[in-house]
């Protein structure tokens, strides 16, 4: 949520047992007050971000990793090394960020920003990161190089 610029404060998570009616009331009141203070959420201002987040979360890379967490942190990875939860979470976070940025670039290209500078202007990522991730998008068949236009490489989403 923070990565997409939506802010994790819009998301509330709480544990309420079936016997705790009073606690439920508190949780709901608190969540309502918090969201009220943050104001209305306009999804049309976050179309690209939401689309990228959706693609990231349903993508196989992240799902593989999440599925491997218990095994990697309890019995160990394929080399027999056991990871502690913190280092696994670090890897998960960096993969999440990378996949999200890739999907954001993909959305920008689909929106008609075909070169690195236009993508940079739209989503604000550093130019170097964009060209680096573009190479990855090409490799996985999500984007392709369409040729040079005024000495600027142009890309298209597939």
């Amino acid at each position, binding site marked *: 949520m923070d990565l997409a610029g*939506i802010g994790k404060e*819009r*998301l*509330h*998570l*709480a*544990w*309420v*047992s*079936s*016997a*705790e*009616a*009073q*606690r*439920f*009331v508190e*949780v*709901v*009141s608190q*969540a*309502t007050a*918090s*969201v*009220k203070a*943050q*104001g*209305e*959420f306009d*999804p049309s201002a*976050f179309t690209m971000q*939401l689309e990228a*987040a*959706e693609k990231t*979360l*349903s993508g196989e890379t992240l799902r593989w990793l999440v599925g491997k967490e218990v095994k990697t942190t309890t019995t160990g990875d394929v080399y027999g090394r056991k990871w502690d939860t913190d280092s696994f979470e670090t890897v998960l976070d960096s993969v999440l960020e990378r996949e999200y940025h890739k999907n954001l670039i993909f959305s920008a290209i689909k929106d008609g920003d075909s070169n690195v500078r236009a993508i940079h202007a739209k989503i604000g990522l550093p130019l170097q990161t964009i060209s680096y991730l573009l190479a990855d998008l090409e490799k996985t068949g999500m984007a392709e190089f369409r040729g040079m236009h005024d000495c600027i490489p142009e890309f298209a989403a597939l």
Partner: protein
Amino acid sequence: MEDFEPKIVAFLCNWCAYAGADLAGVSRLQYPSNIRTVRVMCSGRVDPLFIIKALKQGADGILTAG
């Protein structure tokens, strides 16, 4: 923004928070009517994609309670 009433999608576990909400109703405890409840059989059923979908369709906030 004095009269802004947020729409909050609440994913409630059937066995915990949903029952808690039920009990709140039976005990006549008042709580804000901003939540739109979605009952799930376990809060582990809530896929992060549900949250994105709710935001896409105009929710102002999400509450997951188990």
